[in-house]
């Protein structure tokens, strides 16, 4: 391979130079010898020889340049010709470039999301060493760890460098004119050490500050430092104010440090030697560990399992049932987004494939139409390789132009994605950077090969070219390949449309579900409070009651309540309950979802009472409500009046059931109601949601409510104000994003299939113009001509549809976890999809067919 050698030489210039130098010095020696033999003095001979030989390096340069030149020249010539040829066919070029831009652009946009969310390492040093730790218990799913247990784990393990924990609360900072809500993280010892960050300004916490009773201090975020303190380099020593306390700032953390989550602006030590932190039963830390270098996840798991088993022997009452769970921090951060992103990426990859098929079909048509030109090239002595190179150069120019346009599209796509997928983890990190550009170029390269190679090889077929040498219209079977490609496109489009259809149907079904409560006209909000305040439960309850009363008194408010978890939004708090009145061993265990609400909850949400009475706060006794599923599943008779307790939970003591309410889809609109117990108990701890049922538009009440709360609680801030319907809708934002994007991709796929079919039939019409003209001249009906082309198109479409259905049945099962109320093989959806595609195909084939029948026989025959 001569050209390979040439590339080799360009790369191996050092060796080439050495060879050439040796060769030339030999030449010089010989020359000098000859001159000396002719009678010259030595010095003169050397001089003459050198003069004759000239500048040695120049030869070297020239020789190498020649290699580069020939390579570049060929490539440039091919590219130049490709540009010229494409400029002559603007319609074709525009279609191909637009198709590729769509395919590559959508692909790059989704890839940028995959890269930013799933692939990119977390922004900490050695992020793979970071894991999330949890204690799990067969009775209760709890993501949290007791501080004292975390300290034990940290002390006894051999596989971790360090472990730490944190919790967050919404704080109200009041040194400004209005209270400002800030998210404050309370972190255990070793927090910065474990995360691997250091303050950019100031210092880490001192051991004294990490002890109970030590001074309270705070580290602030870069964002808050810039916004609130105007990037003051002397910020350390200044204070922020919460309630009555002024807390000094000891440092500023780096801008890219957003942990536990973006939006945290303050970090304070959480002393794990506080008296209340000694309980092995109360859990509140989300725990993070950094494994030692080289330690695998499996080693860490088995090590910590052994440590916990030891604790189980030491503290059988509290620790025997508990096991330690370890997940990579990256997984717990972004794992939830994986399935959506993978589905989307699969879809855009199909779209890219369709785009490539489309372009291949178009290039093939073009190559066939240019058979005569190619035949001429052959007869002028062009090699098969050079003809292939020529066609590939065209595909390359098209792909690169497509990729350039695609980047613009992807930029817009990324912006759309960020707003559609606002709930996705790390979504703000999604940007177009050089990797995405590189990725687009790789896509373009792939497209060149996928689109260009087949037409290039076919187009460069000597036999085909020979057959075309004579008359242009001798044409047989050349169109078959195009039709196969179009069929493939149709089937891929059907597959995508089926997926999108199923998601749309799911969303429709979800909209039709009656959730068992009325989210309309309910406003939700939160009021800042701290975990510290929960030490005086009675005061907290009085505070919450006072707030609820004040809001209730507002004109336009019908009912108010609090709840720890918003209804209709996925949240799990599964508890096992004991029936104080006794329960046979043979009967199933009583397991239920637990919710803590205030008595007004059922009136506010319109959940009807079925038996007993609505709970009230009663002196001396805790009361609760249960839902119908709970009553029916666990009790034959009415459970009203029975007492339920939760072993090992000091927080929620024994309670009496006062009534039974109807089932509501508390855990999410898409989930069947589970057995549920409601504790009538509004502790007002951080995370409590306030609900207000309003007469009119709930949004109109947000200002009056904010003002009312400010009147009685001037030091607290009201935040997260939104209608319940919006909150629920936000919880399903990922569903919607998936549906919208997949729908968009499917629509694009159908459009491409339309273009492909239309283009191919048009092409076939053009090629067979003479035949049509002859037929018409011989008296064929124009309708028959239409029928002939139309049936050709419909046959391809029908075959494509059947292929698409098979493919869809194979692939839609990947969607099954995301569907609601329809099966992955829903016949209605699939039928609808096929009908839609057939209608589009009919239009696509009908237009060129009609054009074919309008041919004037005389003109065609004269022309040829």
């Amino acid at each position, binding site marked *: 391979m001569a050209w390979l050698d040439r590339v080799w030489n360009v790369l191996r210039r050092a060796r080439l130079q050495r060879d050439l130098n*040796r060769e030339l010095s030999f030449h010089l020696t010989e020359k000098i010898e000859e001159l000396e033999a002719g009678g010259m003095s030595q010095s003169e001979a050397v001089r003459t020889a050198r003069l004759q030989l000239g500048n040695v390096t120049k030869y070297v340069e020239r020789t190498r340049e020649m290699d580069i030149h020939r390579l570049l020249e060929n490539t440039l010539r091919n590219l130049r010709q490709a540009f010229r040829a494409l400029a002559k066919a603007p319609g074709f070029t525009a279609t191909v470039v637009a198709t590729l831009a769509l395919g590559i652009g959508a692909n790059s946009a989704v890839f940028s999301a995959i890269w930013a969310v799933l692939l990119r390492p977390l922004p900490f040093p050695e992020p793979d060493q970071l894991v999330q730790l949890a204690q799990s218990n067969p009775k209760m799913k709890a993501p949290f760890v007791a501080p004292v247990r975390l300290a034990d784990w940290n002390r006894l393990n051999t596989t971790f460098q360090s472990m730490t924990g944190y919790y967050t609360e919404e704080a109200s900072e009041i040194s400004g004119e209005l209270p400002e809500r800030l998210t404050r993280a309370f972190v255990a010892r070793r927090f910065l050490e474990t995360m691997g960050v250091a303050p950019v300004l100031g210092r880490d916490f001192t051991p004294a500050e990490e002890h109970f009773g030590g001074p309270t201090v705070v580290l602030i975020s870069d964002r808050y430092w810039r916004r609130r303190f105007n990037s003051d380099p002397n910020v350390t020593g200044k204070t922020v104010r919460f309630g009555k306390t002024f807390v000094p700032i000891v440092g500023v953390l780096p801008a890219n440090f957003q942990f536990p989550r973006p939006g945290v602006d303050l970090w304070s030590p959480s002393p794990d030697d506080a008296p209340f932190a000694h309980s092995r039963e109360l859990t509140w830390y989300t725990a993070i560990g950094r494994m030692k270098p080289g330690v695998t996840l499996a080693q860490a798991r088995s090590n910590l399992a052994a440590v916990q088993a030891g604790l189980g022997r030491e503290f059988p009452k509290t620790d025997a049932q508990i096991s330690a769970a370890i997940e990579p921090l990256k997984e717990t951060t972004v794992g939830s987004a994986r399935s959506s992103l993978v589905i989307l990426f699969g879809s855009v990859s199909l779209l890219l494939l369709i785009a490539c098929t489309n372009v291949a079909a178009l290039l093939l048509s073009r190559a066939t139409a240019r058979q005569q030109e190619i035949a001429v090239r052959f007869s002028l002595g062009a090699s098969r390789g050079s003809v292939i190179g020529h066609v590939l150069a065209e595909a390359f120019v098209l792909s690169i132009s497509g990729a350039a346009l695609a980047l613009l599209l992807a930029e817009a796509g990324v912006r759309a994605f960020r707003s559609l997928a606002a709930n996705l983890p790390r979504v703000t990190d999604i940007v177009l950077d050089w990797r995405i550009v590189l990725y687009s170029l790789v896509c373009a390269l792939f497209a060149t090969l996928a689109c260009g190679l087949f037409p290039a090889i076919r187009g460069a077929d000597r036999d085909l070219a020979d057959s075309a040498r004579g008359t242009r219209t001798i044409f047989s079977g050349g169109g078959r390949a195009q039709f196969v490609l179009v069929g493939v496109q149709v089937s891929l489009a059907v597959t995508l449309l089926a997926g999108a259809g199923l998601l749309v149907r799911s969303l429709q079904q979800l909209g039709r579900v009656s959730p068992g409560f009325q989210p309309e006209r309910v406003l939700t909000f939160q009021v800042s409070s701290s975990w510290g305040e929960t030490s005086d439960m009675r005061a907290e309850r009085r505070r919450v009651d006072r707030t609820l009363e004040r809001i209730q008194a507002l004109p336009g408010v019908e009912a108010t309540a609090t709840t720890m978890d918003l209804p209709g939004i996925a949240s799990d708090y599964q508890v096992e309950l004991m029936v104080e009145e006794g329960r046979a061993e043979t009967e199933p265990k009583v397991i239920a979802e637990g919710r803590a609400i205030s008595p007004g909850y059922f009136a506010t949400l319109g959940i009807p009472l079925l038996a007993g009475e609505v709970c009230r706060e009663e002196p001396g006794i805790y009361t609760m409500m249960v839902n119908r599923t709970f009553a029916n599943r666990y009790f034959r008779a009415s459970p009203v009046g029975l007492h339920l307790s939760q072993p090992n939970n000091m927080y929620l003591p024994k309670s009496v059931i006062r009534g039974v309410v109807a089932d509501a889809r508390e855990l999410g609109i898409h989930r069947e109601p589970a057995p549920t117990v409601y504790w009538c108990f509004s502790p007002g701890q951080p995370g409590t949601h306030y609900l207000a049922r309003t007469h009119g538009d709930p949004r109109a009440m947000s200002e009056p409510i904010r003002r009312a709360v400010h009147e009685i609680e001037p030091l607290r801030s009201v935040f997260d104000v939104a209608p319940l319907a919006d909150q629920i809708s936000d919880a399903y934002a990922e569903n919607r994003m998936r549906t919208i994007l997949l729908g968009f991709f499917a629509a694009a796929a159908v459009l491409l299939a339309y273009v492909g079919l239309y283009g191919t039939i048009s092409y076939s019409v053009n090629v067979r113009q003479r035949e049509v003209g002859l037929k018409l001249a011989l008296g064929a009906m124009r309708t028959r001509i239409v029928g002939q082309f139309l049936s050709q198109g419909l046959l391809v479409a029908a075959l494509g549809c059947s292929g698409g259905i098979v493919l869809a049945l194979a692939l839609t099962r990947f969607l099954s976890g995301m569907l609601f109320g329809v099966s992955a093989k829903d016949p209605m959806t699939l039928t609808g999809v096929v009908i839609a595609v057939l209608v589009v195909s009919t239009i696509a084939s009908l237009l060129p067919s009609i054009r074919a029948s309008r041919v004037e026989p005389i003109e065609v025959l004269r022309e040829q």
Partner: protein
Amino acid sequence: MRKNDILKGTLVLLVLRTLASGRKMHGYAITSHIQQISDLLLRVEEGSLYPALHRMEQEGWLRAEWGTTEKKRDARFYSLTAKGRKQLAEEQESWSRLTEGVARVLRGPMEAK
């Protein structure tokens, strides 16, 4: 008589012809050979020879290998490949057509002014 610099494009032909004997020759020998055979009418410029040899090697017309001369010096020896032989035939053919054409034009009648 002035020495003629070799017409552009004919150097390849001359080198091919020189090597057609089947002998392996180094660049210096090729130069001397052409000059001798042409009775010093043609002069091979080194500045053109080596790039040309290199190109011909890349085209696959020549094979090159390192060897030692009788005087025990390292030199690069060139020989003709089958492809080169074919090329020679083609170039000879086109050369004779060219010269014949030129000759006919030169023999032809002068245009009147």
